[in-house]
């Protein structure tokens, strides 16, 4: 299929944190997303079984999700701060602010999960895990809008 963009159109907003023109941020974001969704799943499993193994999984998933989430945030922030075209996009601001809240929620959730036994999950941990996932649906939507509608980080020479 032919490219429908006129040659006179503005260039796509470029990613700054990239390796061989591949943006780093989208390579990292699956890790925190999967970890925090996994936390909700293992929290529900613990809530239903009281089997400590699931609560231990949740604690590790939160820990890994936070580490990878901070790395993804750094790459994303470099892109955001380095490119005026990205900062001009409304979804970019919502994506940034929403995911900052996601990391704060996950951090407090990790502290709740450091309690011992039942109250490390039920009810506060479970509620925080669910809020994190709900918020990620929104911030993920904003991220997809940036890539699939506004072509952030997409090459110009397709």
């Amino acid at each position, binding site marked *: 299929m032919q490219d429908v963009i006129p040659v006179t159109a503005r260039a796509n907003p470029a990613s700054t944190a990239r390796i061989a023109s591949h943006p780093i941020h989208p390579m990292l974001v699956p890790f925190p997303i999967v970890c925090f969704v996994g936390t909700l799943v293992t929290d529900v499993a613990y809530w239903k079984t009281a089997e400590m*193994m699931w*609560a231990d999984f949740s*604690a590790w998933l939160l820990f890994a999700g936070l580490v990878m989430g901070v790395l993804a945030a750094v790459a994303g922030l470099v892109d955001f701060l380095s490119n005026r075209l990205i900062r001009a996009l409304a979804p970019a601001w919502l994506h940034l602010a929403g995911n900052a809240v996601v990391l704060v929620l996950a951090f407090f959730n990790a502290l709740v999960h*450091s309690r011992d036994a039942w*109250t490390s999950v039920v009810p506060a941990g479970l509620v925080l895990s669910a809020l994190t996932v709900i918020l990620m649906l929104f911030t993920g939507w904003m991220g997809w809008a940036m890539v699939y509608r506004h072509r952030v980080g997409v090459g110009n020479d397709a």
Partner: protein
Amino acid sequence: MRRTPDSPRRSICSVAGLAAMLCLTACKESAPDPKTQIGAKPDLPAQQQYLLPPMHVASVVGWKSGETPTVANGLQIKALVSRLQHPRSLYVLPNGDILVVESKAPGTEPIKRPKDFIMKWVESWATSGGDTGESNRITLLRDADGDGVAELKSVFLDHLNSPFGVALVGNDLYVANTDAIVRYPYNPGDTKITAPGTTLTLLPGGPIDHHWTKSLVASEDGSLLYVGVGSNSNITENGIEAEKDRAAIWEVDRATGRWRIFASGLRNPNGLSWEPQTHALWAVINERDELGPNLVPDYLTSVKDGAFYGWPYSYYGQNVDPRVQPQRPDLVAKAIAPDYALSSHVAPLGLVFYTGTNLPASYRGGAFVGEHGSWNRPELNGYKVVFVPFANGRPNGPAQDVVTGFLNPDEKSRGRPVGLAVDKSGNLLIADDVGNTVWRVSPAGR
């Protein structure tokens, strides 16, 4: 939490309360005086659940030359021996020789959660008392002339597995390693045992082995042994199956090694001792952490045959712990309250009833308790040896500080008291596992 009636203080308190709820800092709240948590009916404040539990461990400075603990009026204190390797408990043989059990944690507890990394790191501050050498052995001390200086120091038994309790019945010397009670032949005057030990009964050991000290005492007729087996977690966070046969005092038949659970629901029982008047079994128990700086008070109690003292489901009778699931209302209904609270997080590990005549008369018949000291509250508690007076076989009056000064004025730890014993002359002996010293408390001026 107690609130003061005047409004400026109250607003400060509510801010403190809010901070405590958010727990962004280990804030100092207006806590009940630890003294209100000593005795038969301790104040039990509302439970707190933390985002960050207060962790305040006295970092180690050790004893400088000439420094000693401080003793109550009428007493004096002197190091019987120093430069030991983590001395945890003491046993006095009939000929007056003193056995010092030098012991280290098994170190096999797995990292199950990110939290465990942090906890191990915090605990390492408190136990780094220069004890890098060989431990897990029993050292014999002999002070034949009774001048308070041991002329003879001999490695009595070596290569043990995190030993703690010792009991002698006739010529059979029992050592409670963390995973087994082992019997050795002993003859009066021996300064070293080379014969191999014989396992009498296996005890719950690793790999988790969260509370690993196995306290031991023989019945007065010598037919039975009683051994304290601590829980495998703070509050079942390693799973209830890890707690099988733990948080209990076992009764072991000395002839066959057969055992039964004598009493249960005792989170970490130590200092098993016979009360001299009623001949009842008593122990000191370390209660659970992370419910607040003033929960749950550790305690001294008589231990009744078949009784259940609550752990993990409840404390001080029917105060249910919400962290344990599934809950067991049937067991909570059975739980009995202990006899005497020692206040929260003091970590009592040593207990001895004073039956000697050498110390002032006020100590006769009462109990000395070695309090290793707190980590789970902003203001340090314990780090001393206290005396609980007894009358008619029951505690009678508030605990009195007898040996203090294990903390220096900057709240750094010079030492920490653990096991206690009374020597043949009636002096009190204290194992100090951070100062790596055995202290001898005798009457002043003698």
